[in-house]
Protein backbone atom coordinates (compact mmCIF):
# COMPACT_ATOMS: atom_id res chain seq x y z
CA UNK A 1 0.00 0.00 0.00
CA UNK A 2 1.38 3.40 -0.96
CA UNK A 3 0.71 6.94 0.11
CA UNK A 4 -0.27 8.84 -3.01
CA UNK A 5 -0.59 12.35 -1.61
CA UNK A 6 -1.11 14.44 1.48
CA UNK A 7 -3.74 17.10 0.92
CA UNK A 8 -3.89 19.98 3.42
CA UNK A 9 -7.26 20.46 5.08
CA UNK A 10 -8.38 23.83 6.32
CA UNK A 11 -9.73 23.30 9.80
CA UNK A 12 -9.58 26.90 11.01
CA UNK A 13 -7.17 25.97 13.81
CA UNK A 14 -3.83 27.68 13.94
CA UNK A 15 -1.78 25.29 16.02
CA UNK A 16 -2.18 22.01 14.15
CA UNK A 17 -1.85 20.72 10.64
CA UNK A 18 -4.58 18.52 9.28
CA UNK A 19 -3.98 16.65 6.06
CA UNK A 20 -5.88 13.99 4.19
CA UNK A 21 -3.62 11.06 3.42
CA UNK A 22 -4.61 9.43 0.14
CA UNK A 23 -3.69 5.79 -0.41
CA UNK A 24 -3.53 3.71 -3.56
CA UNK A 25 -5.94 1.17 -2.05
CA UNK A 26 -8.72 0.96 0.48
CA UNK A 27 -7.68 0.97 4.13
CA UNK A 28 -7.86 -2.54 5.56
CA UNK A 29 -7.92 -3.76 9.13
CA UNK A 30 -4.40 -5.08 8.67
CA UNK A 31 -3.15 -1.71 7.45
CA UNK A 32 -4.92 0.01 10.32
CA UNK A 33 -3.20 -2.25 12.85
CA UNK A 34 0.16 -1.67 11.17
CA UNK A 35 -0.47 2.07 11.41
CA UNK A 36 -1.24 1.64 15.10
CA UNK A 37 1.87 -0.35 16.01
CA UNK A 38 3.55 1.21 19.02
CA UNK A 39 0.65 3.60 19.46
CA UNK A 40 -2.86 3.56 20.85
CA UNK A 41 -5.68 2.29 18.69
CA UNK A 42 -9.34 3.05 19.22
CA UNK A 43 -11.46 0.99 16.90
CA UNK A 44 -15.23 1.29 16.53
CA UNK A 45 -16.36 -1.62 14.35
CA UNK A 46 -19.97 -1.27 15.51
CA UNK A 47 -20.52 2.02 13.70
CA UNK A 48 -22.31 1.91 10.33
CA UNK A 49 -18.84 2.31 8.85
CA UNK A 50 -15.94 1.03 11.01
CA UNK A 51 -14.04 4.00 12.38
CA UNK A 52 -10.55 4.11 13.82
CA UNK A 53 -8.34 6.53 15.68
CA UNK A 54 -4.62 6.02 16.19
CA UNK A 55 -2.55 8.12 18.57
CA UNK A 56 0.91 7.45 17.19
CA UNK A 57 4.22 7.94 19.03
CA UNK A 58 5.47 9.90 16.03
CA UNK A 59 3.23 12.70 17.29
CA UNK A 60 0.28 12.34 14.95
CA UNK A 61 -3.31 11.30 15.22
CA UNK A 62 -4.75 9.28 12.36
CA UNK A 63 -8.52 8.96 11.99
CA UNK A 64 -10.61 7.38 9.32
CA UNK A 65 -12.91 4.65 8.12
CA UNK A 66 -11.92 1.17 6.95
CA UNK A 67 -12.75 0.77 3.29
CA UNK A 68 -11.89 4.37 2.40
CA UNK A 69 -8.79 5.16 0.37
CA UNK A 70 -7.94 8.03 2.68
CA UNK A 71 -7.67 8.98 6.32
CA UNK A 72 -6.96 12.18 8.22
CA UNK A 73 -3.70 13.03 9.92
CA UNK A 74 -3.43 15.74 12.55
CA UNK A 75 -0.15 16.88 14.04
CA UNK A 76 1.64 19.87 15.44
CA UNK A 77 3.62 21.82 12.91
CA UNK A 78 6.99 21.08 14.49
CA UNK A 79 6.53 17.35 13.95
CA UNK A 80 5.90 17.40 10.23
CA UNK A 81 9.25 15.77 9.38
CA UNK A 82 8.78 13.03 11.97
CA UNK A 83 5.29 12.37 10.64
CA UNK A 84 6.54 12.13 7.10
CA UNK A 85 9.28 9.68 8.08
CA UNK A 86 6.83 7.56 10.07
CA UNK A 87 4.44 7.35 7.15
CA UNK A 88 7.21 6.22 4.84
CA UNK A 89 8.19 3.52 7.32
CA UNK A 90 4.66 2.34 7.98
CA UNK A 91 3.64 2.30 4.35
CA UNK A 92 6.93 0.86 3.18
CA UNK A 93 6.11 1.19 -0.46
CA UNK A 94 5.53 4.89 -0.07
CA UNK A 95 7.38 7.24 -2.32
CA UNK A 96 8.14 10.78 -1.25
CA UNK A 97 5.31 12.89 -2.60
CA UNK A 98 6.54 15.59 -4.93
CA UNK A 99 3.71 18.02 -4.84
CA UNK A 100 2.82 18.04 -1.20
CA UNK A 101 2.33 21.60 -0.03
CA UNK A 102 2.24 20.50 3.59
CA UNK A 103 5.75 19.07 3.54
CA UNK A 104 7.31 21.82 1.52
Amino acid sequence: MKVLSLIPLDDCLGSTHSVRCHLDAAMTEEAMRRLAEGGRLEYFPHFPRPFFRVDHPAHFIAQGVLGNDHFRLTYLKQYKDAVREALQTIFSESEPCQDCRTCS
Partner: protein
Amino acid sequence: MIYFNHAATSFPRPPAVLTAIQASLTQPPQEPGRSGWEDPLMECRRALMGLFGLEDPLRVVLTASATLACNQILRGLELPPGSHVITSCMEHNSILRPLAAWADQNQGEITYLPLEEDGSFSSGRIRAAVRDSTRLLAFTHASNVTGVLFPMEEIIHLAAERSLPLLIDASQSVGLVPLDLGAISSPVFVAGAGHKALQGPPGTGFFVMAGPDVLKPWIAGGTGVHSLDRTQPPMLPYRLEAGTPNTSGFAGLRAGVLQVLEQTPQVLAAHRCTLAQTLVGDLPTPWRVVSPNPEGDYRTGVVSLSHPEKSPSEVGLMLQEIFGIETRWGLHCAPLAHQHLGTFPQGTLRISFGESNTLEQVAILKDALFQIGMS
Protein backbone atom coordinates in the same frame (compact mmCIF):
# COMPACT_ATOMS: atom_id res chain seq x y z
CA MET B 1 -25.09 13.07 2.22
CA ILE B 2 -26.91 15.25 4.72
CA TYR B 3 -25.77 18.86 4.60
CA PHE B 4 -25.84 20.86 7.84
CA ASN B 5 -23.38 23.58 6.88
CA HIS B 6 -25.67 26.28 5.54
CA ALA B 7 -23.99 28.97 7.62
CA ALA B 8 -20.91 28.44 5.47
CA THR B 9 -22.74 28.33 2.16
CA SER B 10 -26.10 27.11 0.92
CA PHE B 11 -26.59 23.73 -0.72
CA PRO B 12 -28.16 22.75 -2.99
CA ARG B 13 -28.78 25.94 -4.96
CA PRO B 14 -32.37 26.35 -6.20
CA PRO B 15 -32.94 25.41 -9.86
CA ALA B 16 -33.95 29.02 -10.58
CA VAL B 17 -30.47 30.17 -9.54
CA LEU B 18 -28.76 27.66 -11.80
CA THR B 19 -31.05 28.60 -14.69
CA ALA B 20 -30.33 32.30 -14.24
CA ILE B 21 -26.57 31.76 -14.17
CA GLN B 22 -26.68 29.57 -17.23
CA ALA B 23 -28.84 32.06 -19.12
CA SER B 24 -26.45 34.86 -18.23
CA LEU B 25 -23.50 32.92 -19.57
CA THR B 26 -25.12 31.57 -22.70
CA GLN B 27 -26.92 34.69 -23.90
CA PRO B 28 -25.12 37.71 -25.36
CA PRO B 29 -23.32 39.59 -22.56
CA GLN B 30 -25.28 42.35 -20.87
CA GLU B 31 -23.01 44.53 -18.78
CA PRO B 32 -24.01 48.12 -18.19
CA GLY B 33 -21.71 50.52 -19.97
CA ARG B 34 -19.65 47.72 -21.42
CA SER B 35 -21.81 45.49 -23.56
CA GLY B 36 -25.48 45.16 -24.48
CA TRP B 37 -28.43 47.34 -23.54
CA GLU B 38 -29.98 45.73 -20.53
CA ASP B 39 -28.88 46.18 -16.94
CA PRO B 40 -29.08 42.89 -15.06
CA LEU B 41 -27.10 44.37 -12.18
CA MET B 42 -29.83 46.92 -11.59
CA GLU B 43 -32.36 44.09 -11.47
CA CYS B 44 -30.25 42.45 -8.77
CA ARG B 45 -30.06 45.72 -6.84
CA ARG B 46 -33.84 46.09 -7.03
CA ALA B 47 -34.35 42.58 -5.72
CA LEU B 48 -31.99 43.24 -2.80
CA MET B 49 -33.78 46.51 -1.99
CA GLY B 50 -36.86 44.46 -1.26
CA LEU B 51 -35.11 42.94 1.74
CA PHE B 52 -34.42 46.27 3.41
CA GLY B 53 -37.34 48.55 2.69
CA LEU B 54 -35.17 50.84 0.55
CA GLU B 55 -36.39 52.70 -2.51
CA ASP B 56 -33.20 53.71 -4.30
CA PRO B 57 -31.40 50.79 -6.02
CA LEU B 58 -28.31 52.96 -6.43
CA ARG B 59 -27.82 52.60 -2.68
CA VAL B 60 -27.08 48.90 -3.23
CA VAL B 61 -23.40 48.27 -3.95
CA LEU B 62 -22.50 44.89 -5.41
CA THR B 63 -19.27 43.26 -4.27
CA ALA B 64 -17.53 39.91 -4.51
CA SER B 65 -18.20 39.06 -0.86
CA ALA B 66 -19.39 40.42 2.46
CA THR B 67 -15.75 40.72 3.46
CA LEU B 68 -15.03 43.07 0.58
CA ALA B 69 -18.14 45.01 1.49
CA CYS B 70 -16.91 45.43 5.08
CA ASN B 71 -13.50 46.55 3.83
CA GLN B 72 -15.03 49.11 1.45
CA ILE B 73 -17.22 50.50 4.20
CA LEU B 74 -14.50 50.71 6.81
CA ARG B 75 -11.89 52.17 4.48
CA GLY B 76 -14.41 54.39 2.73
CA LEU B 77 -15.33 56.10 5.99
CA GLU B 78 -11.73 57.36 6.31
CA LEU B 79 -11.89 57.45 10.09
CA PRO B 80 -9.41 59.98 11.53
CA PRO B 81 -6.27 58.64 13.23
CA GLY B 82 -6.81 57.94 16.91
CA SER B 83 -10.50 57.18 16.47
CA HIS B 84 -12.31 54.69 18.67
CA VAL B 85 -14.50 51.90 17.30
CA ILE B 86 -16.93 49.74 19.25
CA THR B 87 -17.59 46.19 18.14
CA SER B 88 -18.26 42.84 19.81
CA CYS B 89 -16.39 39.68 20.64
CA MET B 90 -18.75 37.70 18.42
CA GLU B 91 -17.56 39.18 15.15
CA HIS B 92 -16.32 37.22 12.17
CA ASN B 93 -12.86 37.94 10.81
CA SER B 94 -14.57 39.88 8.01
CA ILE B 95 -14.99 42.61 10.63
CA LEU B 96 -12.16 41.81 13.05
CA ARG B 97 -9.31 41.81 10.58
CA PRO B 98 -10.18 44.98 8.63
CA LEU B 99 -10.69 46.74 11.97
CA ALA B 100 -7.36 45.46 13.30
CA ALA B 101 -5.56 46.55 10.13
CA TRP B 102 -7.16 49.98 10.32
CA ALA B 103 -6.26 50.33 14.01
CA ASP B 104 -2.66 49.32 13.40
CA GLN B 105 -2.26 51.88 10.65
CA ASN B 106 -4.11 54.71 12.36
CA GLN B 107 -3.41 54.38 16.08
CA GLY B 108 -7.01 53.40 16.41
CA GLU B 109 -8.64 51.89 19.48
CA ILE B 110 -11.18 49.10 19.43
CA THR B 111 -13.52 48.03 22.22
CA TYR B 112 -14.80 44.45 21.97
CA LEU B 113 -18.03 44.10 23.92
CA PRO B 114 -18.94 40.74 25.46
CA LEU B 115 -22.23 38.86 25.57
CA GLU B 116 -24.32 38.73 28.72
CA GLU B 117 -24.42 35.66 30.96
CA ASP B 118 -27.53 34.36 29.20
CA GLY B 119 -25.86 34.49 25.78
CA SER B 120 -27.61 37.67 24.64
CA PHE B 121 -26.08 40.98 23.63
CA SER B 122 -27.08 44.12 25.48
CA SER B 123 -27.08 47.43 23.65
CA GLY B 124 -26.64 49.08 27.05
CA ARG B 125 -23.00 48.07 26.89
CA ILE B 126 -22.57 50.20 23.77
CA ARG B 127 -24.02 53.20 25.54
CA ALA B 128 -21.50 52.74 28.33
CA ALA B 129 -18.58 52.28 25.95
CA VAL B 130 -19.11 55.34 23.74
CA ARG B 131 -16.39 57.98 24.08
CA ASP B 132 -15.87 61.39 22.58
CA SER B 133 -13.46 59.75 20.12
CA THR B 134 -15.88 57.01 19.03
CA ARG B 135 -16.38 57.21 15.28
CA LEU B 136 -17.95 53.87 14.33
CA LEU B 137 -20.10 51.04 15.65
CA ALA B 138 -19.59 47.70 13.90
CA PHE B 139 -21.69 44.67 14.84
CA THR B 140 -22.85 41.41 13.45
CA HIS B 141 -26.61 40.98 13.19
CA ALA B 142 -26.33 37.28 13.99
CA SER B 143 -23.36 35.31 15.27
CA ASN B 144 -22.07 32.63 12.93
CA VAL B 145 -21.01 30.62 16.00
CA THR B 146 -24.07 30.56 18.24
CA GLY B 147 -26.70 32.16 16.02
CA VAL B 148 -27.48 34.74 18.68
CA LEU B 149 -29.26 37.77 17.24
CA PHE B 150 -28.10 41.23 18.20
CA PRO B 151 -30.85 43.75 19.07
CA MET B 152 -30.27 45.66 15.87
CA GLU B 153 -33.23 48.02 16.08
CA GLU B 154 -31.94 49.26 19.43
CA ILE B 155 -28.42 49.57 18.05
CA ILE B 156 -29.62 51.49 14.99
CA HIS B 157 -31.55 53.84 17.27
CA LEU B 158 -28.52 54.33 19.51
CA ALA B 159 -26.25 55.03 16.53
CA ALA B 160 -28.70 57.62 15.21
CA GLU B 161 -28.99 59.21 18.65
CA ARG B 162 -25.20 59.65 18.79
CA SER B 163 -24.84 60.39 15.04
CA LEU B 164 -22.43 57.50 14.73
CA PRO B 165 -21.99 55.49 11.54
CA LEU B 166 -23.07 51.88 11.99
CA LEU B 167 -21.71 48.90 10.09
CA ILE B 168 -23.91 45.81 10.31
CA ASP B 169 -22.57 42.45 9.20
CA ALA B 170 -25.75 40.68 8.12
CA SER B 171 -24.04 37.72 6.47
CA GLN B 172 -25.89 35.18 8.61
CA SER B 173 -29.20 36.98 8.90
CA VAL B 174 -29.97 38.45 5.50
CA GLY B 175 -32.88 36.64 3.93
CA LEU B 176 -33.99 35.35 7.33
CA VAL B 177 -34.32 38.22 9.80
CA PRO B 178 -35.63 41.44 8.27
CA LEU B 179 -33.94 44.79 8.77
CA ASP B 180 -35.98 47.83 7.88
CA LEU B 181 -33.75 50.72 6.84
CA GLY B 182 -36.53 52.79 5.35
CA ALA B 183 -36.40 55.72 7.79
CA ILE B 184 -32.76 56.01 8.84
CA SER B 185 -31.18 59.41 9.47
CA SER B 186 -27.57 58.47 10.31
CA PRO B 187 -25.20 56.48 8.09
CA VAL B 188 -26.03 52.78 8.32
CA PHE B 189 -24.30 50.20 6.17
CA VAL B 190 -25.49 46.61 5.94
CA ALA B 191 -23.07 44.12 4.45
CA GLY B 192 -24.27 40.73 3.30
CA ALA B 193 -23.15 37.55 1.60
CA GLY B 194 -25.00 36.37 -1.47
CA HIS B 195 -24.24 32.67 -1.13
CA LYS B 196 -25.74 31.86 2.25
CA ALA B 197 -29.45 32.25 3.04
CA LEU B 198 -29.97 34.22 -0.18
CA GLN B 199 -28.88 31.08 -2.04
CA GLY B 200 -26.88 32.83 -4.71
CA PRO B 201 -23.52 31.59 -5.94
CA PRO B 202 -20.17 32.11 -4.16
CA GLY B 203 -18.39 35.28 -5.23
CA THR B 204 -21.43 37.47 -4.66
CA GLY B 205 -21.88 39.96 -1.87
CA PHE B 206 -23.20 43.46 -1.39
CA PHE B 207 -23.83 46.29 0.97
CA VAL B 208 -26.69 48.71 1.25
CA MET B 209 -26.46 52.26 2.52
CA ALA B 210 -29.06 54.19 4.44
CA GLY B 211 -28.78 57.75 5.65
CA PRO B 212 -26.18 60.27 4.42
CA ASP B 213 -23.94 59.23 1.52
CA VAL B 214 -20.46 59.50 3.05
CA LEU B 215 -18.27 56.73 1.62
CA LYS B 216 -15.11 57.37 -0.36
CA PRO B 217 -14.02 54.78 -2.93
CA TRP B 218 -11.57 52.17 -1.70
CA ILE B 219 -10.87 50.66 -5.11
CA ALA B 220 -10.53 52.68 -8.31
CA GLY B 221 -10.76 51.52 -11.90
CA GLY B 222 -13.02 50.95 -14.85
CA THR B 223 -16.72 51.53 -14.47
CA GLY B 224 -17.99 51.49 -18.05
CA VAL B 225 -19.25 55.06 -17.61
CA HIS B 226 -17.62 58.51 -17.39
CA SER B 227 -14.43 57.19 -18.94
CA LEU B 228 -12.96 60.68 -19.25
CA ASP B 229 -12.96 61.26 -15.50
CA ARG B 230 -9.43 61.10 -14.12
CA THR B 231 -10.61 59.64 -10.83
CA GLN B 232 -13.54 57.50 -9.79
CA PRO B 233 -16.86 59.02 -10.95
CA PRO B 234 -18.78 60.56 -8.05
CA MET B 235 -22.18 58.97 -8.63
CA LEU B 236 -23.42 55.79 -6.99
CA PRO B 237 -22.97 52.93 -7.41
CA TYR B 238 -20.03 53.48 -9.80
CA ARG B 239 -18.05 55.43 -7.22
CA LEU B 240 -17.83 52.25 -5.15
CA GLU B 241 -17.81 49.59 -7.87
CA ALA B 242 -14.71 49.34 -10.05
CA GLY B 243 -13.78 46.50 -12.37
CA THR B 244 -15.81 44.06 -14.43
CA PRO B 245 -18.72 42.84 -12.33
CA ASN B 246 -19.64 39.20 -11.76
CA THR B 247 -22.70 39.54 -13.97
CA SER B 248 -23.58 35.86 -14.07
CA GLY B 249 -23.13 35.56 -10.32
CA PHE B 250 -25.44 38.48 -9.67
CA ALA B 251 -27.99 37.04 -12.08
CA GLY B 252 -27.95 33.96 -9.85
CA LEU B 253 -28.14 36.07 -6.72
CA ARG B 254 -31.15 37.95 -8.08
CA ALA B 255 -32.93 34.65 -8.67
CA GLY B 256 -32.10 33.53 -5.14
CA VAL B 257 -33.32 36.78 -3.61
CA LEU B 258 -36.57 36.66 -5.57
CA GLN B 259 -37.18 33.15 -4.30
CA VAL B 260 -36.50 34.24 -0.72
CA LEU B 261 -38.92 37.16 -1.11
CA GLU B 262 -41.56 34.86 -2.55
CA GLN B 263 -41.21 32.30 0.23
CA THR B 264 -40.68 35.15 2.73
CA PRO B 265 -37.79 35.41 5.19
CA GLN B 266 -40.18 34.77 8.07
CA VAL B 267 -41.22 31.36 6.75
CA LEU B 268 -37.67 30.37 5.89
CA ALA B 269 -36.43 31.43 9.33
CA ALA B 270 -39.28 29.59 11.06
CA HIS B 271 -38.22 26.39 9.29
CA ARG B 272 -34.62 26.75 10.48
CA CYS B 273 -35.77 27.63 13.97
CA THR B 274 -37.96 24.53 14.19
CA LEU B 275 -35.11 22.27 13.13
CA ALA B 276 -32.68 23.88 15.58
CA GLN B 277 -35.15 23.74 18.47
CA THR B 278 -35.75 20.08 17.70
CA LEU B 279 -32.04 19.44 18.02
CA VAL B 280 -31.33 21.45 21.16
CA GLY B 281 -34.58 20.53 22.89
CA ASP B 282 -33.62 16.88 23.29
CA LEU B 283 -29.88 16.73 22.80
CA PRO B 284 -28.32 13.32 23.45
CA THR B 285 -26.03 12.93 26.48
CA PRO B 286 -23.29 14.14 26.96
CA TRP B 287 -23.58 16.87 24.34
CA ARG B 288 -23.91 20.51 25.36
CA VAL B 289 -25.23 23.49 23.45
CA VAL B 290 -22.62 26.24 23.55
CA SER B 291 -24.27 29.48 24.67
CA PRO B 292 -27.89 28.52 24.03
CA ASN B 293 -29.87 31.28 22.40
CA PRO B 294 -32.15 33.22 24.73
CA GLU B 295 -35.80 32.22 24.33
CA GLY B 296 -34.81 29.58 21.78
CA ASP B 297 -34.55 32.12 18.99
CA TYR B 298 -32.72 30.11 16.35
CA ARG B 299 -34.02 31.91 13.29
CA THR B 300 -30.66 31.68 11.55
CA GLY B 301 -30.55 27.93 12.18
CA VAL B 302 -27.09 28.01 13.78
CA VAL B 303 -26.27 25.83 16.79
CA SER B 304 -22.85 25.15 18.28
CA LEU B 305 -22.24 21.94 20.22
CA SER B 306 -19.43 20.61 22.39
CA HIS B 307 -18.56 17.21 23.83
CA PRO B 308 -16.74 16.92 27.17
CA GLU B 309 -14.05 14.60 25.80
CA LYS B 310 -14.05 14.56 22.03
CA SER B 311 -12.73 17.43 19.98
CA PRO B 312 -15.04 19.12 17.47
CA SER B 313 -12.58 18.19 14.76
CA GLU B 314 -12.80 14.50 15.62
CA VAL B 315 -16.57 14.50 15.89
CA GLY B 316 -16.92 16.39 12.63
CA LEU B 317 -14.80 13.81 10.87
CA MET B 318 -16.81 10.96 12.38
CA LEU B 319 -20.08 12.52 11.28
CA GLN B 320 -18.66 13.02 7.81
CA GLU B 321 -16.95 9.67 7.31
CA ILE B 322 -19.25 7.33 9.21
CA PHE B 323 -22.66 8.90 8.79
CA GLY B 324 -22.31 11.08 5.70
CA ILE B 325 -23.29 14.20 7.64
CA GLU B 326 -21.58 17.48 6.72
CA THR B 327 -21.06 19.96 9.52
CA ARG B 328 -18.38 22.52 10.32
CA TRP B 329 -15.87 22.32 13.14
CA GLY B 330 -13.26 24.69 14.48
CA LEU B 331 -13.22 28.40 15.13
CA HIS B 332 -15.51 29.45 12.26
CA CYS B 333 -13.29 32.48 11.60
CA ALA B 334 -14.47 34.01 14.88
CA PRO B 335 -11.59 33.50 17.33
CA LEU B 336 -12.69 36.08 19.89
CA ALA B 337 -16.09 34.42 20.15
CA HIS B 338 -14.47 31.17 21.23
CA GLN B 339 -12.20 32.92 23.70
CA HIS B 340 -15.28 34.53 25.18
CA LEU B 341 -17.34 31.33 25.19
CA GLY B 342 -14.57 29.17 26.64
CA THR B 343 -14.29 27.00 23.54
CA PHE B 344 -10.87 28.22 22.40
CA PRO B 345 -8.68 26.83 20.84
CA GLN B 346 -10.59 23.77 19.62
CA GLY B 347 -13.74 25.65 18.74
CA THR B 348 -17.11 23.99 18.39
CA LEU B 349 -19.04 21.60 16.23
CA ARG B 350 -21.42 23.85 14.34
CA ILE B 351 -24.70 22.57 12.97
CA SER B 352 -26.39 25.02 10.63
CA PHE B 353 -29.72 24.27 9.05
CA GLY B 354 -31.19 25.39 5.76
CA GLU B 355 -34.30 25.14 3.67
CA SER B 356 -33.37 21.73 2.26
CA ASN B 357 -33.16 20.10 5.70
CA THR B 358 -35.94 18.05 7.30
CA LEU B 359 -36.98 16.82 10.72
CA GLU B 360 -36.07 13.31 9.61
CA GLN B 361 -32.53 14.48 8.96
CA VAL B 362 -32.38 16.04 12.42
CA ALA B 363 -33.42 12.67 13.88
CA ILE B 364 -30.58 10.99 11.96
CA LEU B 365 -28.16 13.61 13.29
CA LYS B 366 -29.32 13.07 16.86
CA ASP B 367 -28.90 9.33 16.53
CA ALA B 368 -25.38 9.83 15.12
CA LEU B 369 -24.51 12.22 17.95
CA PHE B 370 -25.84 9.66 20.44
CA GLN B 371 -23.70 6.90 18.98
CA ILE B 372 -20.58 9.07 18.86
CA GLY B 373 -21.26 10.48 22.28
CA MET B 374 -21.43 7.02 23.81
CA SER B 375 -18.36 5.63 22.01
